[in-house]
């Protein structure tokens, strides 16, 4: 609640400062990175009309908003940079050098540090956003992918697709303190709102590992069986949890579905058919709409959570990867 008010205040302040640029904040715009076009496509959140294609460095993939929502950070793997998009101008205004081939990243809860996985080098790079410099590099397994900072700021979790582990990095020492053995090809991470449970999607084993963050042990596993697909097509990657922590939505990759999972019981409640090779997924702030990027059909599925049926499919650039919504 407090955070929400602060956020509102920021909105008002920002509105006052940039009276001429009122639409820059809280635009409702959707941003989709496409790996092969080297652009971030901006769509109107209501009409889904294309507002703009923002050129970035090569191969944009992971994206996140700055905590003040004035900027969008975009990890550009082949461009070896994190591009910073100014949301008022809708263009790249800055580039951060966080090492080679950044794929995904997270921000520290205070927004001061950026943690990036460097896919080619097997590193977690810690970047100080204020002083614009790398303050630590942690060696992790090859092809690190998912990066997640714990809400208390003490821990960063990193998956290594190759080593089949989730690395646990302590932020006071920048050292690896543990390696949790996950399934095969662990990709993305999500924490329950209480921070007690970490979810890990395993692309090749087709499962989600449930990790108790206190003991750092795997306590459960979710298996998926969307109708009409074989085990080898079930390749879970993207994941998003509702803010109340009751429901998780998980993209099934080559099985072209999103699984709706009840967090308390770990039971799959429903499978929603979306586009081909569903990876990226995000939820609107009000929890009413899911957005899913489909890498092999080059489109974005819009799914209202009330009906859990695709309302619209919007063509976006080649191989869409991440979608975020500025609401």
């Amino acid at each position, binding site marked *: 609640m407090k955070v929400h008010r602060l956020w509102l205040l920021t909105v008002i302040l920002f509105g006052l400062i940039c009276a001429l640029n009122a639409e820059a904040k809280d635009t409702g715009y959707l941003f989709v990175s496409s790996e092969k076009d080297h652009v971030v496509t901006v769509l109107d959140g209501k009409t889904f009309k294309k507002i703009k294609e923002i050129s970035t460095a090569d191969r944009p993939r992971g994206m996140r908003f700055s905590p003040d929502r004035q900027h969008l950070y975009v990890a550009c793997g082949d461009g070896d940079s994190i591009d910073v998009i100014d949301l008022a101008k809708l263009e790249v205004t800055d580039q951060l050098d966080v090492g080679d081939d950044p794929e995904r990243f997270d921000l520290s809860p205070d927004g001061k540090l950026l943690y990036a996985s460097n*896919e*080619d080098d097997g590193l977690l790079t810690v970047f100080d956003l204020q002083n614009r410099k790398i303050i630590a590099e942690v060696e*992790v*397994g*090859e*092809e690190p992918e998912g990066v997640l900072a714990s809400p*208390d700021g*003490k821990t960063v979790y990193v998956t*290594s*697709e*190759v*080593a*089949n*582990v989730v*690395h646990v990095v*302590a932020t006071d*020492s920048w*050292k690896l*303190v*543990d*390696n949790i*053995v996950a*399934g*095969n*090809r662990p990709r993305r991470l999500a924490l329950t709102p209480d921070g007690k449970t970490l979810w890990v999607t395993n692309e*090749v*084993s*087709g499962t989600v590992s449930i990790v108790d963050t*206190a*003991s*750092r042990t795997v306590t459960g596993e979710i298996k998926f069986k969307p109708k009409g697909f*074989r*085990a*080898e097509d079930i*390749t879970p990657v993207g994941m998003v949890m509702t803010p109340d922590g009751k429901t998780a939505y998980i993209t099934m990759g*080559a099985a072209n579905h999103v699984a709706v999972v009840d967090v308390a019981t770990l039971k799959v409640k429903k499978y929603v058919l979306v586009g081909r090779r569903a990876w990226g997924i995000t939820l609107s702030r009000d929890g009413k709409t899911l957005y899913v990027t489909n890498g092999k059909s080059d489109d974005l599925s819009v799914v209202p959570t009330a009906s859990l049926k695709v309302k619209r499919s919007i063509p976006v650039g080649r191989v869409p990867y991440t979608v975020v919504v500025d609401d």
Partner: protein
Amino acid sequence: MRAIFTFILLACILLSPVQAVEKTFVIGYLELESDPRYKERYSEARYRGQPWGRPFDGAKIALKEVRFAAASAGVKFELKRKIVKDDAELIAALDTLISDGAEHVLVDAPAASINALAKHAAGKAVLLFNVSAVDNSLRQKQCRKNLLHIIPSRAMLMDALAQYLVSSKWRKVLVLQGPRPGDADIYQAFKRSAKRFGLKIVDTKPFKLGRDPRQRSRNNVALLTSGKDYDVVFVADSDGEFARAVPYQIQRPRPVVGSAGLVAEGWHWAWDRHGAPQLSRRFLRKSKRWMTAYDWSAWMAVKALAEAVQRTGSTELNVLKQYLLSEKIVLDGFKGYPLSFRSWNNQLRQPVFLTTGNWVVARAPLEGFLHDKNNLDTLGFDAREIKCQ
């Protein structure tokens, strides 16, 4: 709560050195100095479907990749490489490796050498991994309990190609076959696949390398391909020198497949999904050349062992062998699909790429080719076709 968390964090930091007491897990690696496939000029020619150099670096890259998996099981992996002169030395080297504690040995050698080695190793505490012999014989009459095949067989490669030809409705095939025993093996494998998937071999013509005008019906590609009409030309060339000159030389405007043109391979550097580009680049950086299916197989063998060690928490031969051959195992070969071994002939089931010089056109099994248990088993010898003795 926070105190508990801090305590656990501290405890883990303090306890972590304990994990450092590691057991060494030795993996042997055997190869032949005289292996004709690795003659410098031959490797440099980069014939399609052939090795482009010794695959050992693949195993080394895997060794680095598995360090975290190994550490979590309290194990340190080590490779012991032995390059020997001939088959007799190969057998002696295996015995030395066994006495040095290696219970798992990768073998990069021609089929006959591997067969002799596996025969010698019968009853000994060792498991062999074939990383470079594609010969069907090793998966059929000569299959052995102590020998696992990582590299796909000719049968798998030809089935992949046949699936592609059928999907494209290029059913009428002219075969050009070379004089070597290996060429006959390719032809036999293709004939089996053609029958399996419904292709028609309209004619089979023997070819011969050379420029002798008296032999032109055999060495001139245009003459070889000017008879009955066909949809594609299949070249059965286990060497590659003849095959590379066939595309664009044939009499009709038709595609060339087999040992040139569209080639079925276990790995290709241009595959750009499933983390493959990262692996190919790791290999390129280390070896200064692109990765082939042979390099991939050496890499995959070490990865399979690491997976077994990580999941069982054991280093014991029988435990690992049982896990490797179980249905539970999930191996990630960076080409999609969970991979595992076929219980009937110890062949690693895996997708096969249909490749051009710099692209992967398709990945088999192709859409629509279904199997009642696992679609990967539409490639190669299925349980009911097996002739293991």
